[in-house]
């Protein structure tokens, strides 16, 4: 075998080199994602309560989960909350993004202004809104009474429906900047000529929005909605600070159900099932939609 043949024997193809380069990243991914998921899956078939390991219990924890009233309650609340939060953030984000494209002077200033509330962690937003919405000392009741919009102070965080709505508002407040930036980035890619031609054809603002803005920006819109929905479906930060899941269980988010199982009842087997079902629920919604978005992008 000549030297060049020997060299060729060890020569790496481009795809081979590519695969090799992904190994470190893949290994980290396996350790940080696959291992915990695998471990969690194993745990879901075990009895592991108050740090006492009780051994394999088959599908017992899953049976408990589907019989649990808290599952149906918390999943319903999570669904309403996440759709409401993502929807409200989307609506306001869309309006702001459209407004930002129209701004000609001081654009950097207004963009900075829009993203400011992004810096606020959701749990802190919950605390801020807890005081804004306080029945006896809150800003909201004060403002409403100054404008004579209410006869007596409203207990926003005690009324079942208003408490959920309050959570939605407090969450949207944090995610509006994300939506705005994301949608605005998409809007910026639409050539202005499209709008100019539409105007020449006699299209009004509504038609331009419906037939140009939305179809050409649908990918960004759907994706940003999906990301916020996903975060809010599984994360209870706002309710943790705002209502603690109450009053009663009026805002008992699926994430709070999980947190209680881990930290109050210390039942890791059942908590594993809840976390898996949360992942499955999010995955069932996100996977087909993400597939649609990416296929459309391709």
């Amino acid at each position, binding site marked *: 075998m000549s030297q060049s043949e020997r060299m060729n024997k060890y020569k790496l193809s481009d795809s081979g080199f590519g*695969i090799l380069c992904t190994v470190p990243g893949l290994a980290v991914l396996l350790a940080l994602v696959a291992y915990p998921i695998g471990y969690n899956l194993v745990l879901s078939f075990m009895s592991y309560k108050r740090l006492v390991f009780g051994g394999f219990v088959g599908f017992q924890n899953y049976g408990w989960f589907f019989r649990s009233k808290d599952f149906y309650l918390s999943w319903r609340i999570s669904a309403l909350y996440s759709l409401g939060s993502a929807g409200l953030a989307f609506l306001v984000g869309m309006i702001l993004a459209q407004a930002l494209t129209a701004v000609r002077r001081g654009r950097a200033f207004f963009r900075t202004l829009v993203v400011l509330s992004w810096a606020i962690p959701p749990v802190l937003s919950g605390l801020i809104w807890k005081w804004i919405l306080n029945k*006896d000392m809150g800003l909201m009741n004060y403002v409403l009474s100054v404008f004579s919009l209410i006869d007596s102070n409203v207990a926003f965080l*005690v009324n079942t429906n208003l408490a959920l709505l309050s959570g939605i508002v407090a969450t949207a407040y944090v995610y509006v900047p994300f939506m705005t930036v994301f949608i605005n980035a998409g809007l910026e890619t639409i050539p202005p000529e499209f709008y100019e031609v539409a105007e020449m054809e006699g299209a009004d603002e509504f038609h331009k929005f419906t037939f140009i803005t939305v179809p050409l920006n649908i990918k960004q819109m759907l994706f940003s909605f999906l990301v916020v929905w996903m975060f809010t479906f599984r994360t209870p930060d706002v309710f943790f600070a705002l209502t603690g899941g109450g009053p009663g269980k009026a805002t008992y988010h699926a994430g709070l159900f999980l947190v209680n199982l881990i930290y109050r009842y*210390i039942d890791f087997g059942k908590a594993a099932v809840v976390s898996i079902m949360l992942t499955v629920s999010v995955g069932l919604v996100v996977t087909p939609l993400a597939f649609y978005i990416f296929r459309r992008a391709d």
Partner: protein
Amino acid sequence: MMISWKKSVVCAVAVAAMALFALPVFAGGKQEAPAAAELKPWEQIEWNKPKSWPERLLADKYILPEGWKQAVEGVKEFSFYNIGGIETDIATKMNMMRFEELTGIKINAIPLAPRFTLPKTLSTLVAKDKAIHGIGMNNPSYNFTPIAVYLQDVDHMWPEEVTALYNENLINYLAWDGHWYAMPVAAVGHLNFYRKSWFEQAGVEVPTSMLEFAEAVKKVNQWAQENLGPDHYGIVFSVPSTELFTRYRELMYAQNKQVIGPDGRLDFYSKEAQNAFNWLVDMFRQGFITEDALNFGWMDAANFFGVGKAGAITDAPAMFYGFFQSQYPEVGQDMGALTNLKWSEDDPDEWNGRSLIGANSIGLPKYIDNNHKTAVMLWFDYLRSLEGQRNEAIVEGNASFLLHLWETLDAQFNMVDWNLADAAAKELGINPPVRRTKAGPMITGNAIQSEKSLLEVFRPYFPEVQDKFNEEFANVATGKASTEEALQRVQEIADTFR
């Protein structure tokens, strides 16, 4: 050729993955070699020298045991979880400063909100975080089952002659499965506070029973709403987390009834249980308390009272009085304090003051090095001493399990190092504490409750019952259920754990 490379890569990935999966096994499997018959550092300390252990603990100024210095060799500092914000814990700060002065070991107190105590404790212990040397526990009795396996027992620090110095029920709080796992930092007495000026203006006498208290709240509420506005109320207390059940327990004790029956059953069907539950929920149903209190945490209720929105606050930690006296004198001077009262006028007077006492305690992680363990044990010893407990009771306004403190209370006022208290306040950035020379309502209340306290031990399933109790309470308060339905559902949950 290319196929074989791909195979190699796949193999490499597989090997890397297996190695990573195996990593935690090896990392977790590392064991400390057993130290043959060698004495542990704390076993080398002469705990009964230069004086006997009780004499050292009860000395006017705490006396360190002989041999302590060698036992903590190399320890420059340690950290512990302090339940609550340190800025309200002037006694803890004083004790830290004094311990540092005695030993030269620096202490870091890491504040921990009560609601995060168990999550943080659990995470720290399971992760075997060696940066934390003392674990805060505010409800040790029902938390011990899960965490005892991670704690170093301190049985040697509780010989018979030392145990005899403390409330005999303390063992229920700090021991589990025949071993002591913690030391008391302070006992938290609970009192009812009221605004004297509101009561006077409403023409209400200071109540002498809980039924009278409810009547007083009704009148004060009416006066406040008419004179101060509709956003002022007769009373405030917090509902979520552990606070509501604490208040319920107090009302049970006011009727000379315990929450746990003689057969170990939590009984929510009794007449007393219904009385206690209705006493609380009626405050909501009749509008004597803001609806928002259903979401109030402990500090929310305290702030609500402090800013002048409520005429009374029930079941507030006694130290609250001292805190307001020094930090917000205009509020503190208008505050009256009552112990838990007997249920009705017809009940015997000895039922007054029957109350629960919370035990803020510290446990010692098993996995930290022996010298640090010993340093923390010395800190434990100091905290429970007369000097440490005197600071808690007189400067801060906490209760104490140390019997000698209450037996010699009058003499203790002269022993307080007020200069140290002022220095501690300065470091915390708060006003200096009020220099007390005799027992006022707060310390008297603590003294009574320390003597009459009931230390019922709740088992590990208890948080699930407590959460159900809070949930059902909110349902009744918001008109979605009746008391009978609510208590029946709580009883069903409680019975599943028997």
